[in-house]
């Protein structure tokens, strides 16, 4: 029992440290890649090629002045960043980094837990997390904030549906809701080959759920002056920021797990493949941000409901037919 607890605690600490380091350094990747795409250098001053920039940003966040607007709904204003970061960090629990390994005679699994309903857990907790941004916008008593929050909740409702439809198609071919089983079912052939349409659907809806650029309605800088987090300063703002990048890491991990075969790869299976694929997806997120302009709000809504949703339903229907005909 004691041994089990020790292993569990060490595993949790390592998993969370590694994940949060990736989260911190994905801000560095974002600034660096965006800089080079726009023919700038990005951060360079702090450390070698700005490598210490995320740490400097964190320290700066702590020392900044904290402001709470007079007409803010104070308890909700304080609660909103907590919900955001809490839900985002909770999601790390189910990320499957790798399979079992043996260290000093102990068999250790490279994931914290194998939930029976893993993928549903992700969907549920990420919805709870999106309350953070919405409440933050509402409670700050700022009209830009309220509009940002409103847009956030409408977008969440619309795209969550199509995201779930993409996931259902994957669950159909894998035959399980558990993320570990889904990875194991892709030993020979990755799901991106079996479910190319679901992959595209998942990427689009995932970007919308992440509020990333073609879909960053809640914080459209040019229209809403940063939207839901406009009144937040110092560490509270940093928490929102961290939650966003944490979601990006979880999204990358999910794409890797659901479609790109998780820790499987040529030569030796292992966590190195997982991290490599994750970085490719994170790079993709930054790349598309610097490529696409922001969509108009009504276009985002009609695209979600009139194109993605029927497309997702059709994909499930075709997958079902395929499985019926070829008796899989």
């Amino acid at each position, binding site marked *: 029992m004691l041994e089990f607890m020790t292993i569990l605690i060490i595993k949790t600490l390592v998993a969370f440290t590694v994940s949060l380091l990736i989260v911190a350094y994905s801000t560095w990747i974002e600034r660096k890649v965006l800089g080079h795409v726009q023919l700038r250098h990005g951060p360079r001053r702090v450390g070698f090629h700005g490598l210490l920039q995320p740490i400097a940003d964190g320290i700066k966040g702590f020392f900044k002045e904290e402001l709470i607007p007079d007409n803010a*709904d104070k308890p*909700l204003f304080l609660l909103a960043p907590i919900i955001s970061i809490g839900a985002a960090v909770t999601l790390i629990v189910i990320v499957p980094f790798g399979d079992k390994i043996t260290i000093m005679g102990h068999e250790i699994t490279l994931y914290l837990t194998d*939930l*029976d*309903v893993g993928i*549903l*857990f992700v*969907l*549920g*907790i990420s*919805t*709870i997390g*999106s*309350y953070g941004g*919405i*409440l933050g916008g*509402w409670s700050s008593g700022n009209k830009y904030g*309220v509009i940002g*929050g*409103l847009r956030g*909740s*409408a977008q*969440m*409702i619309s795209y*969550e549906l199509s995201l779930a439809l993409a996931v259902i198609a994957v669950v159909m071919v894998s035959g*399980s*809701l558990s993320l570990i089983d889904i990875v194991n079912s892709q030993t020979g052939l990755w799901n991106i080959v079996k479910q190319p349409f679901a992959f595209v659907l998942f990427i689009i809806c995932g970007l919308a759920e992440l509020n990333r650029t073609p879909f960053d309605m809640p914080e459209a800088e040019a229209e809403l002056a940063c939207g839901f987090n406009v009144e937040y300063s110092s560490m509270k703002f940093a928490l929102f920021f961290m939650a966003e990048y944490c979601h990006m890491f979880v999204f990358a991990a999910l794409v890797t797990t659901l479609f790109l075969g998780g820790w499987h790869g040529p030569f030796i299976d292992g966590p190195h493949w997982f991290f490599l694929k994750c970085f490719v997806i994170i790079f993709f997120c930054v790349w598309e941000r610097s490529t696409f302009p922001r969509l108009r709000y009504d276009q985002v809504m009609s695209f979600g409901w009139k194109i993605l949703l029927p497309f997702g339903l059709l994909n499930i229907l075709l997958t079902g037919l395929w499985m019926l005909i070829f008796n899989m």
Partner: protein
Amino acid sequence: MELVFLLICGGVAVIASLLVIFARSTLHSALWMVLSFFMVAIIYVLLHAQFLAMLQVIVYAGAIMMFIVYAIMMLNLRQEAKSKVATRISKVVGVGALIVLFLELTLIGVSHNMATIQGPVTDKLVATYGRVAVISNFLFSDYLLPFEVASILLTAGVVGAVVLAKREK
């Protein structure tokens, strides 16, 4: 251990449900309701019904409450409007209904022995197929008709809501 968790979650759920009624701001009411749903989901986990718990979080605490929060923000209901609905008769009827419901539940609790109730989802089936598979097997074989009837009812409800909303134009 389980009992302690059950008491904490149940207690928080009851208090949160009361606060839904008593909170002054409409949005706060909605959020207490989210907390209450979430606590009920944890109780489902304690009953080893993870699938139901996750659906509770996704459908109720997530989607439905998100819609309600959206409506509250859209209509900008910052403070509760002075309610004129609560007349004397409705208060009397409400308290009466509460007492009847409470008595009914206590009566059922006392007269039936909950521990002996057997459902189709048994430990043995769960051990062989896994929880989700057992539920879906029953849902799509033995309980197919009720399941389909319920989905038709829900679809009819959606269509009805659209018709009602369109009529005003």
